[in-house]
C-alpha cells in the first residue's frame, strides 16, 4: 500500500452498530410472518433405545394444532457434513436424550407445547454407550450397527464407534525416544461445552405456490443449509431460498442445519409459515456443542530442552452422530504438533460415537482441548528440566521458513515476537510474585480457512457503493472489515458502503461464516471487484479526461487524470444511461497450501492456510482456602498479519478470552446416565461481568502473502490458549497441576490436598 490508508487499519465504528443499539436490527429470532404457526420438537427421553411405538393421534386432535410429523411421514434421508448418518426424525432407534422423534405446529406456542405433552413414545432400552471409555472398549455396543452403510467422505478411516481416525506421521518416534534424555507422558481431559450464543437458533419457513420454500434463519452457512435442505426436502437447491436476517452470535454452533428443516417440513405439511426456535434446555441437550475429549500425550526431550519426538492421541466424544467430529479430529492433530519444531511425530485424532448429543464446531474446533494438553505438558517439561517455560518455548518454536507438521512451509511467522511481547507485558521475570500467585504462558497456531467467496459491487448514481455478498455477519464485524477493504480500494469512505448479505437467491456464493475467513476472503473478493470496477471506470473516463487509461487513478471518490477528474457518481450515472450500471463481480479462493500427502491419513484438514500465531500470558492468584481463581491481568499477543480494524480485533480477542475462561474455569455440560443435569443458564455457568478480567491486546503484524493487506484470520485464535495459560499459572501459583477442564475451585483444592497428603 502506498501512502497513508484512508479506511483500512483505522478503528472505524462497525456499519451495523446503529441498528443494533436502537433495537431496529432484525434477528432471526425476531422474524415473523402473517399467519405464522409455532413449531416444537418432540424429543427422545432415552439415550439408546428401540422405538417400538409412537402415537401422535391425541396430539393431532388438540385444538389449534395444524401439523404433526414424524419419521413415518418421511423423508427417509440421512444427512451430515462428513458422514451422512443423521435422520431428520428417529424411526426405529433413538440414540440420545434429545434426539428429534416428531414435530408439531400449532397456532400458538402453548397449543404446540400441549401437543408435545400428548405424544406417546414407547421405547425398549438398548445397551448404552455413555462415554469414550465405553465406546472404545473391546466388544462395545455399536451406536450405529449400520455404520458401514452410511455415505461418508471417502478418505475417512472409520471402524465401528470410531467415525474417523485422522493421523499425521513424521519421521520415526521410536528414533525420537532413543534420542531423548527424558520422555514425558500425560493424560488430559476436557468437558463438553456450549457456544453460548445469546440468540436461540431460529427459523421461519414459508412455501409459495411454485413449490419454492424460503427459510429465514440465523445460520452461519446459508449455502450449506440450502444444500442440506434440498436433500432433506427432496427438491432442487434452486427451490430453497435461505435468507439470514441477523445472527445473535454463532461461534460455530449455527453452522449446520439446526431447526430449519423442521420449520420447512412443518410448513409444507400445514400449508402455512412455521417458526421454530430453541429453548435453553434444547440448546444444552440437543445442539452442536464442543466435544469433550481425552488426550494422551507423550513427548521426548533432550536435557537442553530440545523436542525429539511427540506421540499424541486425542479422542473426541462426538455424540450420537458424526457431526463435525471427523474434521475436528483432523484439525486436532495439527494443534497437537504445536507451533514447534519436532522431527518425529505420531499424532492421531479419533472421533467417537456415544449416546450423547451430536457435537459440532465451536470457535477453533479442537484448538482449546489439544492446546491445553500440549501447552500444559510444555510447562511440566520445563519444570522437570529446570528450564524457564519461556526459554523452553523459545528453543523449540517454529520460525520463518520452517516446516509445519505436514510439510507446509511456514511464512510470516510472528510467533517469537508474540511470545516475547506477551511475556514482557505480563512481567514474566517475576513469575511467582507472591505466595498463591503465579503467571502462565501458552502459545499456539491456527488456520485461516479457505473456501470461495463472491461479491457483486455496484457504484450507485450518488457515488455510494453497494456490496452484495453471500457472507454472513455473525457479530465479528468481519463484513465491516471487508467493507473497509472495498472502500480503501475504491478511494471512498466506509460510510459510503452499504452491505446486503446472506441470501442464497440474490447474493453470490460464499463458503460462510466459519474458520476465521470472512474478512479475509470477502475482503479479497472485494479487491477483485474493485479492480474490475476500476477497469470499467477508467475505460469510461479516459475519453472524457483525454488521457490514456494507464494515466488514470482512483482518488477521493474520483477518477483522476493528468488534466482533470470525473466523479464516481458521474461515471455511475453515465453507466446507467448507456451501460446497464457500474457493477462488478469479484471472486476469491485461497490458493492451495502445499503439504506432504504421505504424512497424513484420514485427514480432512492437512494444512493451515495463512496461519496465525499467538501467545497468551496470565497473572492470577488462587485463594488458599477456597481454591477460587482471581485473574489480575491477561495479555494476548496475536499475529494478525495486518489489523484491518484494531478495535474489532481487540473485541475478538477480549471475547475469545472470555469464552475461553468460561471453558477453563466453570463451564461443563454435565451428563449422568446419558442425561444432561444442568440444561439451564443457572447451572451452566458462563462468565459474567464479574468473572472476566481486562484483557490487554497486543496486535503483532507480520503480513501474510494472501490476505487483504496481509491480514490473517483473527476470530477463532483467542479462544485457543486460555485453558493452558490459566492451568500453567495455577501450577505456578500453588503447585497444583490440573489436567482436566473445567478447572473448578474444588478441583484445585482437592489436587492440593492430594499433593500435600
Amino acid at each position, binding site marked *: 500500500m502506498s501512502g497513508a490508508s484512508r479506511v483500512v487499519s483505522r*478503528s472505524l*465504528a*462497525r456499519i*451495523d*452498530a*446503529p*441498528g*443494533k*443499539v*436502537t*433495537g*431496529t*436490527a*432484525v*434477528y432471526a*429470532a*425476531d422474524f415473523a410472518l402473517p399467519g405464522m404457526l409455532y413449531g416444537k420438537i418432540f424429543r427422545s427421553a432415552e439415550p439408546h433405545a428401540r422405538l417400538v411405538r409412537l402415537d401422535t393421534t391425541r396430539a393431532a386432535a388438540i385444538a389449534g394444532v395444524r401439523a404433526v410429523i414424524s419419521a413415518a411421514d418421511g423423508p427417509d434421508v440421512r444427512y451430515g457434513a462428513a458422514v451422512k448418518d443423521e435422520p431428520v426424525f428417529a424411526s426405529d432407534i433413538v440414540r440420545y436424550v434429545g434426539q428429534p422423534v416428531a414435530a408439531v405446529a400449532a397456532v400458538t406456542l402453548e397449543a404446540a407445547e400441549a401437543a408435545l405433552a400428548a405424544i406417546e413414545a414407547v421405547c425398549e432400552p438398548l445397551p448404552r454407550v455413555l462415554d469414550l471409555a465405553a465406546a472404545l472398549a473391546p466388544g462395545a455396543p455399536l451406536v450405529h450397527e449400520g455404520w458401514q452403510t452410511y455415505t461418508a467422505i471417502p478418505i475417512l478411516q472409520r471402524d465401528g464407534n470410531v467415525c474417523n481416525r485422522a493421523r499425521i506421521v513424521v519421521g520415526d518416534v521410536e528414533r525420537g525416544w532413543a534420542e531423548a534424555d527424558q520422555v514425558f507422558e500425560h493424560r488430559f481431559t476436557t468437558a463438553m461445552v456450549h*457456544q*453460548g*450464543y*445469546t*440468540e*436461540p437458533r431460529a427459523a421461519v419457513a414459508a412455501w409459495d405456490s411454485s413449490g419454492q420454500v424460503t427459510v429465514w434463519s440465523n445460520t452461519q452457512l446459508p449455502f450449506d443449509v440450502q444444500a442440506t435442505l434440498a436433500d432433506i426436502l427432496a427438491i432442487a437447491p434452486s427451490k430453497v431460498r435461505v435468507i439470514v436476517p*441477523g*445472527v*445473535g*452470535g*454463532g*461461534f460455530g454452533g449455527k453452522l449446520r442445519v439446526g431447526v430449519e428443516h423442521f420449520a420447512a417440513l412443518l410448513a409444507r405439511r400445514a400449508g402455512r409459515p412455521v417458526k421454530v426456535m430453541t*429453548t*435453553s434446555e434444547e440448546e444444552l441437550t440437543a445442539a452442536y456443542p464442543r466435544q469433550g475429549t481425552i488426550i494422551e500425550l507423550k513427548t521426548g526431550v533432550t536435557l537442553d530442552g530440545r523436542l525429539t519426538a511427540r506421540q499424541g492421541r486425542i479422542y473426541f466424544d462426538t455424540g450420537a452422530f458424526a457431526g463435525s467430529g471427523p474434521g475436528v479430529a483432523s484439525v486436532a492433530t495439527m494443534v497437537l504438533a504445536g507451533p514447534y519444531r519436532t522431527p518425529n511425530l505420531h499424532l492421531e485424532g479419533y472421533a467417537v460415537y456415544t449416546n450423547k448429543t451430536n457435537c459440532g464446531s465451536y470457535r477453533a474446533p479442537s484448538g482449546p482441548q489439544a492446546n491445553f494438553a500440549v501447552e500444559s505438558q510444555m510447562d511440566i517439561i520445563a519444570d522437570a528440566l529446570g528450564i524457564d517455560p519461556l526459554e523452553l518455548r523459545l528453543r523449540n518454536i517454529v520460525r520463518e521458513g520452517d516446516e509445519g507438521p505436514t510439510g507446509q512451509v511456514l511464512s510470516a511467522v510472528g510467533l517469537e515476537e508474540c511470545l516475547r511481547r506477551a511475556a514482557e507485558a505480563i512481567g514474566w521475570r517475576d513469575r511467582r510474585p507472591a505466595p498463591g500467585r503465579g503467571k502462565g504462558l501458552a502459545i499456539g497456531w491456527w488456520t485461516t480457512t479457505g473456501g470461495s467467496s463472491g461479491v457483486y459491487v455496484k457504484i450507485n448514481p450518488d457515488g455510494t457503493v453497494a456490496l452484495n455478498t453471500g457472507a454472513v455477519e*455473525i*457479530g*465479528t*464485524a468481519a463484513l465491516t472489515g471487508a467493507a473497509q477493504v472495498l472502500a480503501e480500494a475504491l478511494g471512498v469512505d466506509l460510510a459510503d458502503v452499504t452491505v446486503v448479505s446472506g441470501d442464497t437467491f440474490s447474493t453470490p456464493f460464499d463458503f460462510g461464516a466459519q474458520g476465521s475467513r470472512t474478512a479475509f476472503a470477502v475482503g479479497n473478493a472485494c479487491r477483485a471487484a474493485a479492480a474490475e470496477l476500476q477497469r470499467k471506470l477508467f475505460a469510461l473516463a479516459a475519453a472524457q479526461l483525454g488521457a490514456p487509461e494507464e494515466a488514470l487513478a482512483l482518488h477521493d471518490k474520483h477518477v483522476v487524470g493528468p488534466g482533470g477528474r470525473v466523479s464516481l457518481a458521474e461515471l455511475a450515472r453515465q453507466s446507467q444511461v448507456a451501460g446497464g450500471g457500474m457493477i462488478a463481480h469479484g471472486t476469491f479462493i485461497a490458493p492451495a497450501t502445499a503439504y506432504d500427502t504421505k504424512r497424513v491419513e484420514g485427514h480432512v484438514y492437512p494444512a493451515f492456510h495463512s496461519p496465525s500465531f499467538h501467545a497468551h500470558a496470565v497473572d492470577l492468584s488462587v485463594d488458599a482456602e477456597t481454591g477460587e481463581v482471581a485473574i489480575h491481568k491477561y495479555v494476548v499477543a496475536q499475529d494478525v498479519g495486518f489489523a484491518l480494524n484494531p*478495535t*474489532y480485533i*481487540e*473485541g475478538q480477542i*477480549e*471475547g*475469545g*478470552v*472470555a*469464552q475461553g475462561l468460561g471453558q477453563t474455569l466453570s463451564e461443563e455440560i454435565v451428563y449422568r446416565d446419558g442425561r444432561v443435569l444442568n440444561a*439451564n*443458564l*443457572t447451572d451452566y455457568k*458462563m462468565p*459474567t*461481568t*464479574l468473572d*472476566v478480567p*481486562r*484483557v490487554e491486546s497486543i496486535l503483532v503484524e507480520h503480513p501474510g502473502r494472501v490476505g487483504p493487506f496481509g491480514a490473517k484470520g483473527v476470530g477463532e485464535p483467542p479462544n485457543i490458549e486460555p485453558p493452558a495459560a490459566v492451568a500453567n499459572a495455577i501450577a505456578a501459583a500453588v503447585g497444583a497441576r490440573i489436567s482436566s477442564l473445567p478447572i473448578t475451585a474444588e478441583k484445585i483444592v482437592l489436587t492440593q490436598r492430594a499433593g500435600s497428603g
Partner: protein
Amino acid sequence: MAKIPITLQINRERHEALVEPDRTLLDVLRSDLGLTGTKTNCLDAECGVCTVLVDGLAVNSCLYLAVVAQDRAITTIEGLAPAGTLHPLQRAFVESGAVQCGYCIPGMILAAKAYLDDHPQPSEAQIREALAGNLCRCTGYQKIVDAVLAAANCMTAEKVAL
C-alpha cells in the same frame, strides 16, 4: 384462561391490550406490539437480553407479568431516544466498539441506563456489579464497561453544561 384488559404506557405511548393473566410483558411487547428490540432467550431471568425499564427500574420482562405492568411507565430500547437520534449510552456503545452480534445490547444499555440514573458517576467495579445479570458472549464485557463509563462522563458533562 379469561383475558384481562390492560393499559400499558410504553415509551410514553398508551397501548390497550387484552391478555391472559400469565402472559409475560416480554411476550406482549414482542408478539402483540412488534417491539422486537427487546430480545428473547432463556425465559428464566438468567441472561438479561429481555431487560426493559419499568418505572425506571431494570427488570427481566420474561418473568414480569403483563398485568403487573398496568399503569407503570415502561421503556424499551425503541423508546430510549427520539427516532433518528441516539441516547448517550447508545452513542457510547457504537463509539467504544462495544457491539458485536448485538443481541444482548438493548438489555445491556437499559440495565446501564437504570443504574446511571441513580449513580451518575460510577466506578468500573460498580458498573460491573450493575451489569452482572446481563450475559454477553461476544465481547468479554470490556468495551461494554468502557462504553458505560464514557456515557456516564458524557451525561455528567451535559448536565454540568446545562
